[in-house]
């Protein structure tokens, strides 16, 4: 990373291309985890790149570059939401403002029925889980330090929350499996809504004992 940065500072555009290739997917995941629609997500990501290029000579900790970029995207997303709330008279800044990306149709793009069910189950998770898992889905997988920066949460909380959220996801998936096989013809009616009801009925406390066992995952940021 240090080498890549020094090449960029010397004007090597191939090094810049390599860097954007490495992090754009993560930055996109961060913006989408904040429920930005495609155009706002694109703006937030681009702002981070513009900020980096103008500060390229001042980056002191190359190893924290991913966290630095992720933090900018998170703040930009807050900023975009804040501004959108201002432009709507009487608007609020709640995280699930109407008109934002939920993308239930995305699952229609998936030919594989299991993938579609998994993606719908993911969309049915509560917002904190959806945010965390969306960032963890970045490719290449982000370090926990980067995830912490992306979501403004403690590094130590990531492992346990990840475990709990994936358990919730499996529960939703099991519920949808039942639906697929017993009520196949009802699936077209919009199963995502049903999943959300399911999530709402299932208090997070159910999983707390599970999470309290601590991070079985030894990954460090």
């Amino acid at each position, binding site marked *: 990373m240090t080498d890549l940065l020094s090449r*960029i500072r010397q*004007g090597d*555009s191939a090094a*810049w*291309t390599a860097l*954007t*290739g490495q992090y*754009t*997917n993560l*930055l*996109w*995941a961060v913006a*989408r985890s904040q429920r930005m629609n*495609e155009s706002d*997500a*694109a*703006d937030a*990501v*681009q*702002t981070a*790149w*513009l*900020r*980096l*290029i*103008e500060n*390229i000579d001042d980056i002191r900790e190359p190893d924290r570059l991913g966290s630095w970029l992720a933090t900018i995207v998170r*703040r*930009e997303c*807050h*900023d975009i*939401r*804040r*501004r959108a709330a*201002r*432009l709507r008279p009487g608007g*609020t*800044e709640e995280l699930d403002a109407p008109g934002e990306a939920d*993308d239930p149709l*995305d699952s229609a*793009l*998936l030919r594989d029925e299991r*993938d579609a069910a*998994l*993606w719908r189950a*993911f969309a049915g998770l509560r917002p904190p889980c959806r945010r965390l*898992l*969306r960032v*963890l*889905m*970045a*490719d290449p*997988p982000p370090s926990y330090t980067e995830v912490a920066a992306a979501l403004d949460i403690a590094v130590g909380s990531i492992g346990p929350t*990840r*475990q709990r959220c*994936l358990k919730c*996801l*499996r529960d939703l998936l099991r519920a949808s499996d039942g639906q697929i096989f017993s009520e196949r013809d009802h699936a077209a009616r919009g199963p995502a809504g049903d999943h959300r009801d399911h999530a709402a009925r299932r208090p997070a406390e159910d999983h707390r004992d599970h999470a309290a066992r601590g991070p*079985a*995952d030894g990954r460090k940021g």
Partner: protein
Amino acid sequence: MRGVDHDDKLLADLRRIAGSVDGPPASVLEAARAAFLTRDLDAEIAHLVADSRGPAAFEQVRAAPEDPAQGHWLLSFSGGGVQIDLEVESDAGALRLVGMLSGEPVEECALRTESGSHPVTVDELGRFVVEGLAPGPIRMFCRLAGGRRVTTRWIRI
């Protein structure tokens, strides 16, 4: 440990699916690559010195404080011998910048957006207006009478 492997597998499946239905569009990757071209090694930077919707507000987002400058967004940049004050106004979906340039004499200015460069006509008192802007990152760029170049940092309006 089996549970952990199981979790990794599930997350890998999600990562694969996200890659196919919610990856960054090609235009986002292209714009990221093109950002390199905005690098201007010679221009001096005018830094943001005042923002009525200040950066501190980032961290107060959840508290949603009442903004005394609501509707009047004022930005000031300073550096390279000039000061640039901008007021951002929203006008029927588009944005309008009403600006004031002070300091050293300026030969010409332009407003850079992601879609290109808009010439800015500065009157003898240093005032200028740019209308019909779409929300997004902008930066103001000026050539001073002495030949030096100054650019503001990117700011998203």
